[in-house]
């Protein structure tokens, strides 16, 4: 079995290679075979990810990682290395008490520096004792986790020019390096496995779905590029790289939403997604700046300096910054996460993003990219744990978004948009879990992320299958009774729906209960009553009912009904989708049905994820004393019972309203709702878009117009003035060049004389 250091770079490298290959060969050579590089690369990448998962699972289980968590860093390349960029108080010390500053040209030395500090070594004062543990003793203990691929590139000019001798070997680290460093830890391994697995299935599905599209090769090239960016995002080991690929997935999302860019709605949706994300990314960037000024490093891991989330910093709670700065960092990071994960108030882009091809909606806007925010929160959890306010903010944003998504999804008529709002809602649940700030919360959120990836991708792909058969029609009012002609799609959609509503024993049941448990745990034990979590718990608990309604309403309207209703766009040959599309549906359905049960009963995922350094930190320094296992179990089972009742009630209610010939009941119920204005509120998506247009877009447009006016009048005017001046001067000089050589000679002599005169006087 290959080493982690070989597997890890391979996972993003294969999709990148496929993207480039398809982009180069696609238009001329591959054409209708353009899917091969992507499918092969993703399948290999998926295999590598699963191998990595196994390997990390085996290694992280070892006893020595139990307390501090497991991580392994692979440094590919030193992007920049700026000497003497800053002074740091928190520093890594080698035995002599000095830091050997590594140089860009000696890759092996870099590796040696990235030692992990021995267990128990903490901040400055206490670490002095452990300085005796030299590099040599650290290595055999297995703490020396770094591997360096000698792949040295361009280091900064400043570094190149400087002679060796001027490098200070002082007591403080002063050089700033940006490395392309990948990390393998449980969190990354899980994310990688989910991303590559779902994307492989989606790529296979796309062979059928995108068949005959003029941009066939372009589509697969983008998909590969996306998988490359996403896998890099989750395996990056510093904030800068995270940010770079955060933007890269945003770019891929933009490209794929606007894939049919000749459609104005698609182009506008792409732009909207990009612009709304900019707000979040702006916050994220500010957060990273603040992290840099506060911690003096952007690395997660300990390298030449103590990493932001490095084991040394995590070894004790003190070096995690709290207070106003800590809260500011967390809130800015949260803003970034809100943008990418479509959380309130930046959720407005995701429904519009459904203009893209359905496989894209399934892969990027349901299963993977939108969960990047959740991943980031899980990664940065130690920072959030230091700030109760930030945790509350995360939870409130999550809970509110969960509710908003559910309320809006109930009345929508576009099948994909219903699913989009349900995605927003479920991401809200994940945020809520992260907001708990406990190991229970983080593992529950990640658990839901994994199961959600399966059932939501499944639902989207099933919706795509319907859309494919209906000739592009996606309005649920315009078709019905499709179970007769699309049996596979019907059954897989049903399984996906049951998983989403959280019906026992489908996947969503376990992960959703885990989230509810994590929130309930925050206020159910001890004498401390946290009203925020309590309120959130009950609202989201009520939300489960809404989930059932908004899931089964489109399901019943689409697949049931007395007659098979088919819109004219579908033509006469509405039929079940080809094998390349139903195959992935079946596989995902199996996952949606059994994955939750498997992960819950083995208890593997939570235990495995707890081996991530940032999660292990929460374990080591819990915010509140943990309740006993038994009380937790009893709470869990009671939540499970209650939620099952809730879900069953919701499903029965929906069936009562919509099944069979009783469809009129729903219309009758809608009457009073319309009079109360509630229906319009939900149908109008809570009027976020018009409000934003009025209060954000319009003022900005006016401001832009003012700027344009100023630019045209004043700035251009002054530039033109600068341009005219030398022109006039030049014109004044022109007569000098008269063409007469006598004058030239005279000028030369005069010049000499004048110069001599000036010198002598």
């Amino acid at each position, binding site marked *: 079995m290959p080493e982690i250091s070989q597997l890890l770079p391979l996972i993003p490298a294969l999709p990148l290679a496929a993207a480039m290959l398809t982009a180069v060969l696609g238009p001329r050579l591959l054409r209708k075979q353009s899917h091969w590089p992507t499918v092969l690369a993703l399948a290999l990448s998926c295999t590598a990810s699963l191998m990595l998962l196994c390997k990390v699972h085996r290694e992280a289980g070892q006893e020595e990682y139990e307390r501090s968590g497991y991580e392994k860093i692979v440094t590919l390349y030193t992007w920049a290395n700026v000497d003497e960029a800053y002074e740091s108080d928190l520093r890594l010390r080698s035995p002599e008490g000095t830091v050997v500053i590594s140089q860009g040209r000696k890759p092996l030395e870099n590796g040696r520096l990235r030692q992990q500090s021995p267990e128990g070594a903490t901040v400055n004062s206490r670490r002095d004792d452990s300085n005796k543990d030299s590099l040599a003793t650290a290595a055999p203990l297995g703490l020396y986790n770094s591997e360096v691929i000698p792949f040295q590139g361009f280091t900064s000019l400043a570094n190149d020019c400087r002679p060796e001798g001027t490098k200070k070997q002082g007591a403080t680290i002063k050089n700033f390096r940006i490395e392309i460093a990948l990390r393998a830890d449980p969190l990354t391994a899980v994310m990688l496995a989910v991303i590559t697995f779902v994307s492989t299935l989606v790529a296979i599905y796309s062979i059928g779905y995108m068949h005959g599209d003029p941009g066939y090769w372009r589509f697969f090239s983008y998909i590969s590029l996306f998988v490359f960016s996403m896998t890099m995002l989750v395996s990056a080991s510093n904030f800068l790289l995270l940010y770079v690929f955060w933007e890269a997935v945003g770019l891929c999302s933009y490209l794929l939403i606007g894939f049919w860019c000749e459609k104005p709605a698609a182009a506008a949706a792409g732009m909207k997604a990009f612009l709304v994300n900019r707000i979040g990314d702006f916050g994220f960037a500010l957060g990273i700046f603040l992290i840099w000024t506060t911690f003096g490093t952007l690395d997660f891991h300990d390298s030449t300096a103590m990493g932001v989330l490095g084991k040394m910093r995590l070894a004790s709670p003190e070096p995690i910054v709290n207070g106003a700065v800590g809260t500011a960092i967390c809130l800015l990071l949260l803003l970034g996460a809100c943008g990418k994960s479509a959380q309130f108030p930046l959720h407005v882009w995701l429904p519009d993003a459904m203009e893209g091809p359905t496989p894209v909606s399934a892969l990027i806007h349901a299963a993977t990219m939108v969960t990047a925010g959740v991943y980031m929160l899980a990664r940065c959890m130690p920072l959030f744990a230091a700030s109760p306010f930030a945790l509350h903010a995360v939870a409130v944003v999550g809970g509110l978004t969960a509710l908003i998504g559910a309320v809006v999804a109930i009345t929508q008529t576009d099948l994909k948009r219903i699913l989009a709002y349900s995605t927003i809602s479920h991401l809200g649940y994940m945020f809520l879990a992260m907001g708990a700030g406990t190991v229970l919360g983080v593992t529950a959120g990640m658990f839901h992320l994994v199961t959600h990836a399966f059932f939501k991708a499944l639902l989207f792909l099933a919706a795509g299958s319907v859309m494919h058969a209906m000739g592009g029609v996606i309005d649920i009012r315009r078709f019905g009774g499709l179970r007769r002609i699309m049996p596979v799609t019907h059954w897989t959609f049903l399984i996906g729906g049951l998983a989403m509503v959280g019906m026992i024993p489908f996947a969503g049941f376990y992960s959703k209960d885990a989230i509810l448990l994590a929130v309930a745990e925050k206020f159910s034990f001890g004498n401390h009553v946290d009203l925020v979590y309590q309120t959130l718990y009950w609202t989201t608990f009520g939300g489960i009912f809404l989930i059932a309604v908004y899931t089964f309403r489109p399901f019943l309207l689409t697949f049931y009904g007395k007659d098979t209703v088919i819109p004219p766009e579908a033509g006469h040959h509405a039929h079940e989708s080809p094998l390349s599309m139903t195959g992935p549906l079946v596989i995902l359905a199996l996952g949606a049905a059994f994955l939750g049960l498997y992960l819950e009963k083995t208890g593997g995922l939570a235990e495995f994820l707890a081996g991530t350094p940032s999660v292990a930190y929460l374990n080591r320094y819990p915010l509140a004393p943990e309740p006993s296992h038994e009380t937790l179990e009893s709470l869990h089972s009671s939540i499970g019972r209650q939620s099952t009742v809730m879900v069953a009630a919701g499903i029965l209610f929906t069936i009562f309203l919509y099944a069979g010939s009783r469809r009129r009941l729903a219309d009758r119920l809608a009457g009073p709702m319309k009079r109360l204005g509630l229906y319009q509120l939900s149908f109008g998506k809570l009027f976020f878009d018009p409000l934003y247009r009025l209060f954000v877009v319009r003022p900005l447009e006016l401001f832009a117009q003012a700027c344009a006016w100023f630019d045209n009048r004043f700035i251009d005017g002054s530039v033109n003035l600068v341009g005219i001046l030398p022109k006039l001067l030049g014109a004044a000089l022109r007569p000098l060049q008269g063409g007469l050589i006598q004058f030239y000679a005279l000028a030369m002599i005069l010049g000499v004389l004048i110069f*001599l005169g000036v*010198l002598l006087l």
Partner: protein
Amino acid sequence: MNDEFARSEYCPLTTDHCPLISVNLSDLLQDVLSSTTGPLMGSFRPEVVISITILVILLQRTFLPAWKLGAFYLMLLGLGTAFYFVVPWHGTMEGMKSPPPFTGMLVADSFSVGLRTLLYLFTLLLIPFTQISGVPKREDAAEFYVLVLGALLGMSLMVAANHLIVVLVGMEMASLPCYVLAGWQRNRRFGSEAALKYAVFGAGAAGVMLFGMSLLAGALGSAHLPTMASKLIALFELFPQERSAVVATSGLLMLGGLMLFVGIGFKLAAFPFHFWAPDAFEGASAEVGAFISVASKIAALGLLVRLALAFSAVPDPGALEKLAPAREYLVILISTLAAITCTFGNLAAYGQTNMKRLLAYSTIAHAGYMMMAVAAAVAVAGNADRSGAEEAIASLVVYAGIYLFMNLAAFAGVAFLRNVLGSEDLHEYAGLVRRSPGFTVCMALVMFSLLGLPPLAGFTAKFAVFKALYETGKSPIHALLAIGVLNTVLSLFYYLRVVKVMVIDPEPADRTAPEIPLRSAAGGYFFLLASFMLLLFFFSGGVANWARRAVESLLM
């Protein structure tokens, strides 16, 4: 002390202080022979190859006139061999520690090797260009190439000169073929006029320079540059005691120096000795323009560096301090002329409608930027730490190396467009982008590079020089830096105008389609040159390292 210093140097043709006078004739002959044959086989092998090539081309012309392409291939072969020998890793640097070549008339150091490499590289690039553009015609090619090689030989002497006689000989050897080349298009009136103006102006400048040389040699009693420097130090040592004599001699030296500078200024086309340049460039073909504007300028800059550093930087740290007045004079002289030249070139380029005239003024401006680096080097030459001066000269070498590609590309673009348009007027370029988009993009790259925008080579060059200016830490040089930066802004307008005409202006209706596809020889050659604009930027580290190697033994 003074004698000791003089003796430590090798001083061949001087009368006093020189121990050689006492040795017998056979020893002297032996010595001359060994100092001549050694370098001919060693560091000056390239020049030997060039001389042989000249002979072979002439012989081929006489005995094998039917071989039309003979001159071209022989030229490539000869230049290629010379280039092979001149690049530093082929033994040219050997023998530097041995007695100076040609009894001290020349120096063989890394700087001369570096600049000669640039000169040969440039000519090597120029030859295919002339072949593609069709000037000279095949039947005249032999003469043309012989003239180019002759000039090149003179330029090699210029950058390796260590004696005023060699300076004069080198300059004349470099200039005379250029006069002929400028009038190469005999049937065109402008060509002859340009050549005549160039020659008359050149003769005048050479006369003034020779006068200046005689003043310097007379006042210092030697024409060997290191000896002159030691004499100058001896003169300054007398200062407090024999005040009036020193002041009188100094005045004479200043006048001599200024007159010597006239000659160099003429070759550099520095203001006010630039008047020949626009006329000559307009009259001469673009191919010749490229040669004169690049090769001549690099050689003249090399010579300027040699002369300026000879009187401002001597190896002995004690003597170094005493040269302060000389440095002050040189800094004032060079920096003033650099600032005026640069500003004048940029301002005058504004109203030009003829591309070659525009480029002529642009090259004047570029000479100004390069002179700034020399001024900076002289300003810090007095420091005990020589790295400052070395960095400044290295920046000059970087600039020269990049300027070589930029200017060659600009003139090549003009020549290729002349071949399809029949005109060199800027307004004829209107709407070029619609017919030959690839070519226009390359031309735009070259213009942006001349302007100095990243990510193009011109930026690397300007940045290197401006950085060197900044790092001198002296306020007059900082003023020069400010002028240089302002000038860059000035130059924006006329370089961009070229791009604007090509891209934005509507195409004239009455024009035949001027198409230069990138797949043709001309387009491909131009594309290659334009790609260097990007390459030299992205591999600027390599260029900088190379330049640093070129100056490593300059100040030893």
